[in-house]
């Protein structure tokens, strides 16, 4: 890379701090990276330029530690219209329609300011979708917290849920699903991953490019303030006892403005007055303008004094790096500026021309006449050095994995499996999540066929017979014990969840939440998990079309469990053939698809009953998963089933209970008899993969079993659905029977999280202070 003489025009502004090694370090740049910047510029960067490089070469924007790994993910399929690299991935779903979707984390902001951190996480991901020209039609959320026994955790949990809800509710986008896990590994490092899905006509897709030399660059939406400066850099370091001092770097959301911006943006895109549009998200104007230019190979020239600001005295550095929310960067067609402004005015928003697309390939920022930044655009965006780190598994997970959970069973299985089931149903990881999703509007826009609480959310698509389904999944404990298997399981479970509602899995958006990649044991987890995801996505025909990487999720107590969250979207050709998880009629046959292998490793049973995390994550047979998915889809298509439910955390007993108590007004009894030659706990509570519990009318049973045979899926009738408010009975050869009133199980399951949260009222005064860290 040689320096161009044209880049020598930039001069420090009066009052800029001197560029010292300390200042460079404070900007999160290594000596090596700074050396590269000197080489690109052929001179010392100005303070403004240093800030620009710092943001764009942060992990959050530059993916410097993950890019080589991400290349391993499959990204192509005939139905993929847009893979990774744009604001969102897009798939073709036929009928001239396309679905744009993406998931994104807002972990660090949520750790220090849960309400705003979560709210702006939802805001950002919505903008990523509607800048593709797609109208957002659904939101999903994937949450991780420490134990709810901690007042601080309850404060974080309540704040995040309220933030997710208030933002999506106000903009009017239904929340159709999510997941939440609670584990000490996330104490101090909660995770908030938000996924948004948008619908767009295939021919109305738009990309974020700065095309056309001479076209005006316009800033649209909210004004720029001093909030969130260097948020991207903040997201790329470990949390520490000082992290709460970063609260001013957390942005503040305004969903009302977002709603206006959404309507204005869609109107702009359809109007034909613009060439490209991009959210000013992480690293604000700096990243949006440089990325748009880099995608089209053009240069830009911005006069920073033209940027609408909401406070005086802001420096170019601050304006470029501000992460004020609800702003868009638009490249308009030359001469159409007034049309753009008119549309924005209608929606009570502002637009200002701040620059122009140039042909010199330079990223130039002026303050009036003074050039404060002039950098070759391409290396700024794509020149971020990438690193292939050394990965080495840590001793602890290897040791835990080698332990055989069956050694516990030689001491005899659970004496009281009914009590064990009740404890599992009362564990926050398994208990009803209604406390969360009843704070979300899931029915606005009147397309929601299946709201949160099922295996996947389902929406109908107006004007067609089609539906789409979506889910988010990841078991971090599996990923900790065996990151490769954990990654595969996340994909397989997501696909199974979609098949259980009758949707064909189509594509993935992934959110890789990990610790500090500079640590070999963390890099090992990241690399292994990506390998597992890649293999499963390949085998299940679900390419990864978009995603996000969140590293440095650590605090002085250690890293989080590796948590590669998989967001998956599927398509139903006929939405009226969707399936639900709840049993329907007394006398229906209950059929287990898949095989009980009794794997207890990493199970909720071991954690809740024995207080242990250990054993290997359950084995995954991707061919068997594929066969199960095809079998479920055929059964859905033939309308043979009354219910279908994925068997996951808590194993078969929990799966049966969830199907039995799905309708709180009419919980149904169950009579099941298991023939397997397995000890009690592994049989009842083991978390073997590749299983689903389905039910059907007695008349359909033979056809269901026959379909399973044809697909090579093991299938056995294990019992019958009982009477409303009846007994829930599961007998096996090796353990005492589970025998409880289904209404009592429902009571335990539905009240567990509300009971824990009710304690927070008494403790809220201490909850507001961060937990002191060692």
């Amino acid at each position, binding site marked *: 890379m040689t320096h161009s003489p044209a880049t020598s025009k930039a001069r420090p502004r009066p009052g800029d701090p001197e560029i010292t090694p300390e200042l460079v370090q404070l900007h999160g740049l290594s000596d090596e990276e700074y050396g590269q910047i000197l080489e690109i510029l052929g001179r010392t960067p100005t303070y403004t330029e240093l800030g620009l490089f710092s943001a764009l070469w942060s992990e959050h924007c530059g993916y410097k530690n993950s890019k080589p790994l991400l290349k391993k993910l499959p990204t192509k399929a005939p139905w993929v219209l847009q893979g990774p690299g744009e604001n969102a991935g897009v798939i073709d779903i036929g009928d001239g329609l396309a679905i744009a979707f993406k998931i994104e984390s807002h972990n660090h902001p949520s750790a220090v300011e849960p309400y705003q951190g979560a709210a702006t996480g939802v805001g950002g991901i919505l903008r990523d979708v509607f800048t593709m020209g797609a109208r957002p039609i659904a939101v999903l959320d994937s949450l991780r917290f420490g134990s709810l026994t901690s007042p601080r955790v309850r404060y974080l949990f309540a704040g995040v849920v309220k933030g997710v*809800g208030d933002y999506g509710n106000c903009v009017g986008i239904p929340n159709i699903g999510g997941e939440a896990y609670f584990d000490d590994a996330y104490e101090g490092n909660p995770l908030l991953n938000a996924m948004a899905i948008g619908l767009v006509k295939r021919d109305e897709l738009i990309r974020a490019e700065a095309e056309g030399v001479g076209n005006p660059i316009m800033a649209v939406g909210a004004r720029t303030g001093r909030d969130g400066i260097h948020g991207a850099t903040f997201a790329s370091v470990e949390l520490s006892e000082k992290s709460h001092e970063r609260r001013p770097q957390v942005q503040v959301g305004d969903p009302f403005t977002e*709603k206006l911006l959404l309507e204005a943006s869609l109107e702009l895109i359809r109007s034909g007055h613009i060439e490209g549009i991009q959210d000013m998200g992480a690293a604000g104007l700096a990243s949006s303008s440089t990325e748009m230019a880099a995608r089209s190979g053009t240069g830009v020239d911005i006069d920073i004094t033209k940027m609408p600001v909401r406070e005086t005295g802001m420096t170019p550095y601050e304006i470029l790096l501000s992460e004020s929310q609800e702003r868009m960067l638009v490249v308009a067609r030359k001469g159409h500026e007034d049309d753009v402004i008119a549309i924005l005015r209608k929606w009570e928003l502002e637009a200002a021309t701040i620059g122009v697309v140039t042909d010199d390939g330079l990223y130039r920022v002026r303050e009036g006449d003074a050039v404060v930044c002039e950098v070759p655009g391409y290396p700024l965006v794509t020149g971020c050095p990438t690193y292939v780190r050394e990965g080495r598994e840590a001793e602890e997970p290897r040791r835990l994995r080698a332990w055989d959970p069956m050694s516990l069973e030689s001491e005899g299985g659970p004496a009281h499996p009914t009590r064990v089931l009740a404890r599992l149903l009362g564990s926050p990881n398994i208990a009803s999540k209604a406390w969360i999703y009843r*704070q979300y*509007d899931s029915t606005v826009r009147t397309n929601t066929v299946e709201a949160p609480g099922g295996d996947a959310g389902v929406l*109908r698509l107006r004007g067609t017979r089609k539906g789409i389904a979506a889910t988010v999944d990841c078991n971090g404990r599996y990923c900790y014990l065996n990151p490769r298997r954990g990654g595969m399981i996340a994909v397989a479970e997501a696909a199974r969840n979609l098949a259980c509602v009758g949707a064909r899995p189509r594509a993935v958006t992934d959110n890789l939440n990990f610790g500090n990649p500079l640590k070999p044991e963390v890099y090992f987890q990241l690399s292994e998990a990506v390998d597992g995801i890649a293999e499963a996505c390949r085998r299940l025909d679900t390419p990864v079309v978009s995603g996000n990487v969140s590293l440095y999720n650590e605090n002085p107590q250690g890293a989080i469990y590796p948590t590669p969250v998989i967001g998956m979207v599927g398509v139903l050709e006929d939405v009226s053939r969707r399936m639900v998880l709840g049993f329907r009629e007394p006398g229906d046959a209950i059929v287990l698809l898949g095989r009980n292998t009794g794997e207890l490793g990493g199970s909720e049973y071991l954690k809740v009953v024995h207080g242990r995390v250990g054993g290997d994550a359950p084995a995954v047979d991707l061919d068997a998963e594929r066969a199960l998915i095809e079998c479920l889809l055929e059964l859905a298509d033939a309308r043979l089933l009354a219910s279908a439910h994925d068997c996951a955390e808590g194993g078969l007993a929990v799966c049966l209970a969830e199907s039995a108590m799905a309708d709180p007004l009419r919980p149904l009894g169950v009579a099941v008899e298991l023939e397997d030659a397995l000890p009690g706990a592994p049989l009842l509570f083991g978390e073997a993969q590749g299983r689903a519990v389905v039910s059907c009318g007695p008349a359909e049973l033979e056809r269901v079993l026959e379909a399973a045979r044809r697909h090579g899926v093991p299938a056995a009738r294990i019992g019958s659905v009982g009477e409303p408010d009846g007994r829930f009975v599961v007998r096996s050869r090796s353990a005492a029977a589970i025998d409880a009133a289904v209404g009592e199980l429902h009571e335990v399951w539905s009240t567990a999280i509300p009971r824990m949260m009710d304690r927070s009222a008494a403790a809220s005064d201490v909850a507001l202070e961060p937990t002191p860290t060692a």
Partner: protein
Amino acid sequence: MRVAVVTFPGSNCDYDCYKAAQDVLQADSYYVWHREHDLGAAGAPDLVILPGGFSYGDYLRAGAIARFSPIMREVMDFAAAGGLVLGICNGFQVLCEAGLLPGALVRNASLQFRGEGVYMRVENATTAFTSAYAPRQVLRVPIAHGEGNYVADEATLARLEDEGRVVFRYVDAAGEASAEGNPNGSMRNIAGIMNEQGNVLGLMPHPERAIEQLLGSTDGRGVFESIAASLAGVR
């Protein structure tokens, strides 16, 4: 039939109401932007819907700013002339703020947003909005609000009850107006009320989200069917 759906900045159920009027009533529905000064170029509509959402972000108080929108003057004149006005969720809040309906909607007693299916009972089946229902019929409809807790002074409540203007009441699955069936703490479990003349109805639940079996309930259709019957003069 012509149905005007008013869109305030921040309305987000305008589309749902537009579609409901179209699908259930086969109406000619159209949007009216809040800055407009008339309710439709082709003259007065047959029905005005103030939809749900967060007009002006619910800043200050839900509905408090929207009532100053230019179009509200037209809505008030339309209502005064006997035109049918249906305010749903945020629309109900706007109607209370504008003084077209008595009382106010404050934060839910739980202090949390509630988005879920609830039951409400038809307390007066002789109105322009409920004639298609049986008396005391129990309906399953979604709610989605953070400020739906209806409050009014005792005298107002007594009048509303005496005059049959409590149109809908939250109930439990058994049809009883219990505390358990009350999702937001509303006084006397009030879910919807009408004005003295009976031409303005406000309710927090969303009938427009309950018009298709595919989406879980058709219990909201009756509101639209009643309106159609009333307009056709066959009450």
